[in-house]
C-alpha cells in the first residue's frame, strides 16, 4: 500500500444557511482547503464528492456542486451518494492504483431546507418500514432503548455524553450547539424520543467539508507533518433493525479490527455519533480505552452537517495529528439507520 496522508482540511458549519445555494456553500471551503494545501489546482489528480439528493429535494445535487470546484480543463472526477468519508475512501483507492498522487475530496449538504429527520425515512425498507414513516430519531431511539436495557447504562450516562459534547463545542468556533453544559442541565430537558432528549440528538446543521490527500513524497513536500492514513476500512450490516443485535455495532467492530485500530494505543478519536448512546456503542465497537480523548471538536452532537460530518471526523483527527497534539488517532463515519454502515480510519504522525 502507498502511504497516503491528509495534507489539508477545511469545513463550514452553521445551523441554517439560508443565504447561499450549494455552489456558494462549497466554493469558499474548496478555496480555503486548496490555499492551505500547498498544491495548485492543476496538481490535483482526482476529485471525489459525497452528497444526498433528498436533502435538497431534487436530483443531481452533485452536478451543480461541481461548479464550486471549477472543473476546467476537464478533471478525473467521481461521486458517491454517501457521506464524504466514502468519497475519501474512493479517492484513497484511486491513489493506491498508482495513477494519481493527490485528491480533492468534499462532502456537502444542507439539512435545514427540509424536515431532516423525516427526510431520512426515505432510506428505510420501502415495503415494510417506510410506509410507517418512523423518523431518523425514532429509529435511533429504538436502538438507544434496547442498548440502555442491555448495557445497564442510564439516561444520566447519555446526558454526560451530551453535556461533554457541548463543553467541547465551546472551544470549536464552528459548533452550532455549545456551552458550559452539565449533565443535570441535560436531564432537566424533557424526553422527546424516549429515552432521548434534544441534547442527545445532533443539531440540524448546514455545511461543507473539503480535504486534500497526497501520497508519499508529495505529502512530505507540502506538509511538515502529514497525517498518514494507516488503515481505512468500512463494513455494512443487515438493513432490518429486527434482524440485527441492536445492542452492538458488528460492522464497526469488523471495520475497526480490519483497520487494526487496536494494534497500538489510540490517543484521540472522532466518532460520527449523531446520538449520545452511539458514542458509548462506538467506543465499545472500536475498543477505545477510557483515556482516549473522544470528540474533542464536540463531534456531531455539536455540529452535524449531513454528508460532511463523517469526512469532518477524519479532518478533525488529521488536524490534531498535523499540529503535533497527538500522534495516533481514529476517525469514524456512519451511514444508514442505527449505525448500519461504518467506516474506520486510523491516522498517525511520522
Amino acid at each position, binding site marked *: 500500500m502507498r502511504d497516503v496522508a491528509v495534507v489539508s482540511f477545511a469545513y463550514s458549519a452553521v445551523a441554517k444557511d439560508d443565504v447561499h445555494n450549494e455552489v456558494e456553500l462549497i466554493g469558499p471551503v474548496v478555496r480555503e482547503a486548496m490555499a492551505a494545501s500547498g498544491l495548485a489546482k492543476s496538481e490535483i489528480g482526482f476529485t471525489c464528492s459525497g452528497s444526498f439528493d433528498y436533502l435538497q429535494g431534487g436530483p443531481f445535487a452533485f452536478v451543480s456542486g461541481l461548479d464550486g470546484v471549477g472543473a476546467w480543463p476537464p478533471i478525473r*472526477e467521481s*461521486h458517491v451518494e454517501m457521506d464524504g468519508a466514502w468519497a475519501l475512501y474512493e479517492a484513497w483507492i484511486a491513489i*493506491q492504483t*498508482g495513477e494519481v498522487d493527490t485528491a480533492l475530496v468534499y462532502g456537502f449538504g444542507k439539512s435545514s431546507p427540509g424536515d431532516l429527520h423525516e427526510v431520512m425515512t426515505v*432510506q428505510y425498507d420501502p415495503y415494510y418500514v*417506510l410506509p410507517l414513516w418512523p423518523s431518523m430519531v425514532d429509529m435511533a431511539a429504538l436502538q438507544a432503548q434496547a442498548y440502555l436495557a442491555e448495557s445497564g447504562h442510564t439516561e444520566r450516562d447519555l446526558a454526560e455524553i451530551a453535556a461533554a459534547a457541548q463543553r467541547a463545542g465551546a472551544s470549536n468556533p464552528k459548533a452550532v450547539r455549545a456551552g458550559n453544559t452539565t449533565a443535570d442541565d441535560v436531564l432537566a430537558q424533557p424526553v422527546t424520543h424516549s429515552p432521548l432528549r434534544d441534547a442527545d440528538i445532533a443539531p440540524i446543521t448546514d455545511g461543507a467539508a473539503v480535504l486534500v490527500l497526497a501520497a508519499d513524497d508529495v505529502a512530505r513536500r507540502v506538509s511538515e507533518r502529514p497525517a498518514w492514513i494507516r488503515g481505512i476500512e*468500512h463494513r455494512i450490516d443487515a438493513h432490518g433493525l429486527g434482524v440485527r443485535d441492536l445492542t452492538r455495532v458488528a460492522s464497526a467492530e469488523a471495520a475497526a479490527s480490519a483497520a487494526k485500530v487496536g494494534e497500538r494505543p489510540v490517543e484521540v478519536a472522532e466518532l460520527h455519533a449523531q446520538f449520545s448512546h452511539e458514542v458509548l456503542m462506538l467506543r465499545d465497537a472500536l475498543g477505545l480505552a477510557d483515556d482516549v480523548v473522544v470528540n474533542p471538536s464536540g463531534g456531531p452532537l455539536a455540529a452535524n452537517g449531513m454528508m460532511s460530518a463523517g469526512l469532518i471526523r477524519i479532518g478533525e483527527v488529521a488536524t490534531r495529528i498535523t499540529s503535533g497534539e497527538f500522534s495516533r488517532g481514529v476517525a469514524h463515519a456512519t451511514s444508514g*439507520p442505527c449505525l448500519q454502515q461504518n467506516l474506520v480510519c486510523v491516522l498517525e504522525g511520522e
Partner: protein
Amino acid sequence: MAGQPVAVVGIGQTHHRAARKDVSMAGLVREAAVEALEDAGMTWADIDAVVLGKAPDMFEGVGMPELYLADALGAVGKPMLRVHTAGSVGGSTAIVAAKLVQSGVHERVLTVAYEKQSESNATWGLSVPMPFAPPLVAGAGGYFAPIIRAYIHRSGAPRHIGHLVAVKDRRAALRNPRAHLHLPDIDLATVEESFLLWDPLRYLDTCPSSDGAMAMVMGSESVARSAPNPVAWVHGMAMRSEPTMFARRDQVNPQAGKDCAADVFAQAGITDPRRDLDCAEVYVPFSWYEPMWLENLGFCAEGDGWKLTEAGATAPDGDIPWNPSGGVLSSNPIGASGMIRFGEAAQQVRGMAGDYQVPLTTGKALGHAYGGGSQFFAMWVVGAEPPA
C-alpha cells in the same frame, strides 16, 4: 495501466422490460448478480466487496438504496460503496469496482447497477421542477435536440443519418434476447414516419424507459487465471468531468469526452480505435449521438462521423460495429445503461455474446458511458488477452 491487473470474470444481466412487475427492487438486482456469480463460478462468500450504482434515488423513491439492498447483494459484513455520476454511473461504478482490484485492496468484487423506472416515471425523475431553476419547458429532449441540430449544421450531415442508427441498433437488438425493444419490422420508413417529438428528433430516434440490472464480478490476476469461463482483461479505464455550462463550451464535441478517450486509448495502446478495436458499446440514447461520439472518441476526423454511419461501418457486419447488443436505443434502465455498455464490450472479447457476437481480430472492445448534459464520461477498453 498502473497497478494490479484486473479482469471481468463474471457477467449477468436481467431481461430488460418496460416494467418488471414480477420482482421487487432486491429481486431485480439479485437476478443480475446471481448470474454474474454463476458465470464466475463463485458463491456469495467468495466476494470481498460490493459496489452499487444507479441514477437519482428519486426514480424509485428509495434514498441510498445500498442500505436496503445490502442483504440481497451479499454485502452484509463486507465493504459496500454506492456510486452516482448521473447517466455515466453504470460505467463509473464498474471503474470504481475495478479499481478496488487494481489497487491491490481486493481480489473479487461484485458490482451491480440498476434502475426500476416503472416505480415512477423517468421524465418526472429527471426534471423535478425546482424553485429558482429556469423552467424546463421542453423536457429532456429539449436539452439534447438543439445540440443535435448544431451537430447537423456543423457537419453538414444529411437528415436521415439519425434514422439509420435508429434502424441499425433496433435490428441488432433482434439478436439479443435481453433487449427491451424488439421491433422486427423496423426500417427507415418506420422511423421517418414515427412522431416528430423534438425536431430534429423523432420518436424512434429516442431510447425507451426500462427496468433492468447489470452485474459483473471483477477479479485479480490469480482469480482470472482460475476462472471457469473466458475473462475480459481491463486494458484501460478513465473518467472525466467538466462543468455543465461554461463560456465557450463545445456541447457537441465536449473536451471531457475527448480527453477521456485519449486517456483510455493511451493506456490500452490504441492509436487508431477504428482499426485497433473489434467493436464498441457506446452510450447512444438519441440516434444522432452515434455520429457525434464517433468524432468525439476519435474514430474519425471531426465532421466525418456521419459518413461512417452512412457507409455501414458501424453495423454489426461493418468494420467497426457499434452497439451490436442493440445499445441504449433498445434497452435503457438508466442507472444500469452504462454498465451494460461496459459488460457487453466484455462479453464480446470473451466470445460470449451469443447471436450478436462480432468476429474477433484484435480482441479488444470499448465500453463507454456519459451523463448529465454530456459533461460526465466513463470509458474502458477490455481485451481477450491480458495487457502486455
